């Protein structure tokens, strides 16, 4: 269990490089427990890299990432169980149906009666009607909904949302806002990276603006 007073996310002088380019450079930041964070910045400013670092999909080149008081490198598996990432890539198997995609994840997480959990989540994101169609035929918006269902399956303590409103129609954006608000109400800390600053500002208490991989005043 994380220490009660530990910040939800603490970055200590974190850097990540790709070859000769710094994607994130010497970033130090602490997100107080119970607050949600809006990440802003232009394309290529390091938002996605930062989220992937926090999700432990990448390990930092230098510095330390702490999630809920745990080191993201040393205690990686524990951090992975607490964190869920909604990324640009949907993590969905194209050849499986919506229901099967979620069932696979439920089995990996050790959830009892995985299929029931999966269909309950499909109802929640409004995909019941397409639960038995393969993902290959899904529109971008439906994929996004299924990806968010995948995230909700984990009931994460920290949800990382990379452009959750991208490719969604106005109704979808509204639904997504509802889901994020629900997550927050359930005690999940949300880190949101988006270009839609208005939506983001209404959902998050804190804001971090990135430019060329470092924090700047917005």
């Amino acid at each position, binding site marked *: 269990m994380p220490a009660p007073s530990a910040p939800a996310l603490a970055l200590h*002088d974190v*850097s990540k*490089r*790709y*070859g*000769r*380019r*710094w994607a994130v*450079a*010497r970033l130090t930041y602490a997100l107080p427990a119970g607050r949600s964070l809006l990440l802003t910045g232009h394309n290529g400013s390091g938002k996605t890299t930062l989220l992937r670092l926090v999700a432990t999909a990448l390990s930092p*080149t*230098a510095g330390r990432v702490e999630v809920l008081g745990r080191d993201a490198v040393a205690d990686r*598996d524990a951090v992975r169980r607490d964190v869920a990432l909604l990324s640009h890539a949907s993590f969905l198997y194209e050849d499986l149906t919506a229901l099967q995609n979620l069932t696979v994840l439920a089995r990996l997480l050790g959830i009892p009666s995985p299929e029931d959990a999966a269909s309950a989540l499909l109802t929640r994101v409004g995909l019941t009607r397409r639960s038995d169609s393969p993902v290959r035929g899904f529109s971008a918006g439906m994929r996004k909904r299924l990806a968010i269902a995948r995230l909700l399956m984990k009931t994460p303590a920290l949800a990382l949302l990379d452009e959750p409103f991208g490719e969604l129609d106005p109704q979808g954006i509204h639904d997504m806002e509802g889901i994020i608000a629900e997550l927050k109400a359930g005690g999940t800390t949300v880190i949101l990276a988006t270009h839609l600053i208005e939506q983001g500002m209404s959902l998050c208490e804190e804001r971090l603006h990135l*430019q*060329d*991989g470092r924090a700047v005043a917005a």
Partner: protein
Amino acid sequence: MKRLMKWVLPVAAVVLLGAGWYVGLAVAPPDREMGDVQRIMYVHVPLQWMAMMAMFINFVAAVAYLLSSGGNVGTVSAKPRSSSPLVSLLALVVNLMAWVAHILKSGWGLLMPGSKEDEARAKQDESGWKLDSVAEASAEIGLVLGTAGMITGSIWGRPTWGVYWSWDPRLTSEAIMLVTYMGYLVLRRFVEDPDKRATWSSAVAILGAINLPIVWFSVRWWRSLHQVQSSPRTVDPAMVLPLRISAFGMLALLLVFLGYRYRQAMAERRAEMALPDALPGDVPSSLPQNSSKVA
């Protein structure tokens, strides 16, 4: 160190190879059956030995890289995730290997002292890149020496066996070894990310090296059912001396090649991992020295 590379080893290589080959060609007796043709042995055998030596260095560097560059392998036992006996046995083996690698690594540090500015994380340490560069250099040189050894072997084989190539276990195994390391070098060319390249090529080097003894046994078994092609090398004492001298000469040559190729590889790594150019709108000195040492 510099003088060793620039003068001592090259001179030793020239003198020893010259002396060994002179004795081998002019002083040692010709082979009773093969005649003067056999004198190619003084070139062929040292080449083969040193090719093996280079591949061995490659294997050691690959193992040391995987174990030194902090990661999961060394810590399997640290996470008691599964208590099955197989896992504990594997963890034991891995820990034993990690211990050996640690000793190897500290020994390596004595041989090639590197900059020690930043020891906070193994990843930032240059020693990983040194091991990777040694692995690259030794595989390439081993491939060159092995190919030269194979060519001289064919030249020897033609008058003695009547053919350039035979499916003799020794030849077959060596051909497989050369193809294995060709694959290794091709992989290195096809992966741009230096970290991934180092990790993946180490894995490939280890899998390939483990395979060589298995190849050797399987091929010998495979052939022995067809024909017994024994090539006994009963070496006359008068032949031992020139062989030994030229082998040491070849060792010096191997070390010269290795040293220069290693420096080249290391320069490539440093260029790949050099501090990126100052970012737009950035003060050039805003990154302190220790984070620029990430390499």
